[in-house]
């Protein structure tokens, strides 16, 4: 994984010192809240419903054991002993005191972490495939590109005051596991006919109140042009994007209003006109960063260890966990494992400091020291020897981290919602908890099969409800929570936005509504069909009839 050089370390330290001074000036009254707010946001510090919230960047979701232990320490020393992993592969601390935040940032800097650009109208944390470097279907490690973009976009003077936030995701595999079609820019690593590396560039995707699937801007962009081309895209957006209305300020609206052809012409024109005489050569930078992402030295491992077979045969819980949470590794004898942060009835993505330390230990002993945060709010241990799986499972099991539900109906994505967020209009986590309890039976979950439920507590869609097979959006209707249901959303290669079933439902009714949707699916599915396949075959009508039968 990437390690800071002297420049990175100095930049982060200077930034902390700068913010420490800004906090001091806020506390002594030299800065007003209006002056201070954009400064704290650029350092990931929000003021939420109950307290400040610090959002820490986890670049493309990659962490090492030492960093995870430091997050545990930070949560105990300056927060309330837990953290919340987000759909942006970051972590949030929900209860810091303003005066403590500079010390928290110093503690992050000690382990090569920061909170820079985890908020504000700038280029945010670049997200990627949690199985980077693991998946057999990838062309190269997408994190090399993600790190290149992180360095390019960090404190980029031209793109520090964009019209709105800007999110980039990178995939390098045939299967899109980074939801690149619902990002402002989605990059897919490709090779041209001659085998040269480059990118398919998608633009204008996003969720929020006006969800859109990204459109193709370039089918193939040579790698050498990546930074210049993105500069052209950002520049056109920065100049042409709307600033009169916050809700129409994202690049997706500009692309939609201009049309992808006209937008593309403007980008190409800007790109042609760029003075690239002082550009840092991408190839050299890419090669420098790529060295950090060289495959680890895998200790030898048996591909079919006998002891594993015996453990699988003797412990059905363990066998279920391996079957459900395992992900094929391209290195023989290894498996990537998802540690679910979705215990039945839990708050999706929340982990205690103690659990963080267990995850750090698990990574150290069993995963070459590495962890990944997924946008599904789980943790991946990317490099586990098959012969270590049983010992790993035992370790996790002792700390409530052995839930075998990756991709099942209880593996729910939920934003913090009304319980934490100042913008939310309805609760999210309690809805997730109620659904999770309702479908707690593992056998029933397996019978239903893969099915994503995604819950947002307001129209900003942090819970990705637009791309949930079942999407749930909590709204406020005259002071009462009302939950709109959408069906058929998909964040991956066949990206689609969910379609509304009809009028919303009250909080208490949501689990029953989900149950009716599931029952309808089970009654209609053909052998081997998943929920989305069934939905695409039969359409909305039978689900609507099931939900609204008897309604006037």
């Amino acid at each position: 994984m990437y390690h800071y050089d002297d420049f990175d370390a100095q930049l982060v330290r200077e930034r902390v010192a700068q913010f420490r001074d800004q906090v001091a000036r806020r506390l002594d009254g030299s800065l007003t809240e209006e002056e201070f707010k954009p400064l704290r946001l650029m350092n990931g510090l929000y003021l939420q419903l109950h307290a400040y919230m610090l959002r820490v960047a986890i670049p493309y979701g990659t962490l090492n054991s030492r960093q995870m232990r430091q997050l545990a320490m930070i949560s105990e020393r300056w927060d309330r002993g837990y953290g919340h992993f987000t759909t942006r592969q970051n972590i949030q601390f929900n209860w810091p005191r303003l005066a403590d935040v500079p010390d928290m940032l110093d503690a992050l800097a000690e382990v090569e972490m920061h909170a820079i650009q985890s908020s504000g109208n700038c280029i945010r944390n670049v997200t990627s495939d949690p199985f980077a470097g693991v998946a057999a279907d990838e062309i190269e490690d997408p994190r090399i590109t993600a790190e290149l973009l992180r360095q390019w976009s960090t404190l980029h003077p031209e793109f520090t005051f964009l019209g709105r936030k800007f999110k980039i995701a990178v995939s390098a595999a045939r299967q899109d596991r980074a939801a690149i079609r619902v990002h402002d820019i989605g990059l897919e690593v490709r090779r041209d006919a001659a085998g040269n590396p480059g990118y398919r560039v998608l633009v204008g995707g996003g969720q929020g109140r006006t969800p859109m699937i990204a459109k193709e801007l370039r089918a193939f962009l040579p790698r050498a042009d990546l930074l210049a081309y993105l500069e052209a895209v950002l520049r056109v957006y920065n100049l042409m994007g709307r600033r009169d209305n916050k809700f129409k300020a994202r690049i997706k609206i500009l692309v939609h209003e201009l049309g992808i052809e006209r937008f593309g012409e403007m980008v190409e024109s800007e790109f042609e006109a760029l003075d690239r005489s002082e550009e840092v050569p991408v190839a050299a930078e890419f090669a420098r960063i790529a060295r950090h992402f060289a495959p680890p030295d895998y200790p030898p491992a048996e591909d079919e260890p006998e002891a594993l077979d015996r453990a699988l045969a003797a412990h059905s819980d363990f066998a279920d966990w391996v079957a459900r949470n395992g992900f094929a590794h391209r290195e023989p004898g290894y498996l990537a494992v998802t540690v679910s942060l979705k215990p039945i009835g839990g708050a999706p993505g929340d982990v205690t400091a103690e659990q963080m330390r267990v995850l750090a230990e698990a990574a150290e002993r069993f995963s070459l020291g590495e962890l990944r945060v997924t946008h599904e709010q789980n943790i991946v241990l990317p490099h586990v020897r098959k012969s270590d799986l049983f010992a790993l499972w035992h370790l996790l099991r002792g700390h409530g981290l052995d839930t075998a539900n990756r991709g099942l109906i209880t593996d729910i994505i939920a934003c913090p919602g009304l319980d934490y967020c100042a913008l939310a209009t309805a609760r999210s986590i309690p809805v997730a908890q109620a659904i999770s309890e309702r479908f707690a039976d593992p056998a029933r979950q397996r019978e239903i099969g893969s099915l994503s439920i995604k819950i947002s507590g307001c129209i900003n869609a942090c819970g990705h409800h637009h791309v949930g097979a079942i999407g749930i959006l909590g709204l406020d209707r005259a002071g009462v929570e009302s939950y709109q249901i959408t069906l058929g959303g998909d964040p991956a290669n066949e990206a689609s936005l969910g379609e509304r079933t009809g009028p919303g439902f009250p909080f208490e009714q949501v689990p029953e509504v989900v149950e009716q949707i599931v029952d309808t699916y089970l009654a209609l599915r053909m052998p081997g069909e998943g929920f989305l396949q069934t939905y695409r075959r039969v359409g909305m009508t039978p689900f609507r009839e099931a939900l609204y039968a008897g309604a006037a």
Partner: protein
Amino acid sequence: MARAQHPVILTAQDLIEGDAVWWTGTGWSRNLAHALVYNDPAAADAAEARLAAEESRVVGVYRVEVDPAPVPRPILRREAIRADGRPSFAYRPQGAARRAA
């Protein structure tokens, strides 16, 4: 939007802690029971404007509609959760330690 039909109290967030505080008429308190209830919208407007202009130890002054008796209780769920100072569910995963308050 129609004017509030309910009495209101004034709230903000403490600059250092970030938690909710309530205007008592003479200062800011963390105890909701001490909040001054305004039955007169004009008086609430005037106080809100004055307190917003004086913000130094608090951030984001605004009004909250309440059911005033026996102690003020916010009408809206959002404000009720905020007034409780914690999420509506058992939010700390089991075993989580807490920073000394």
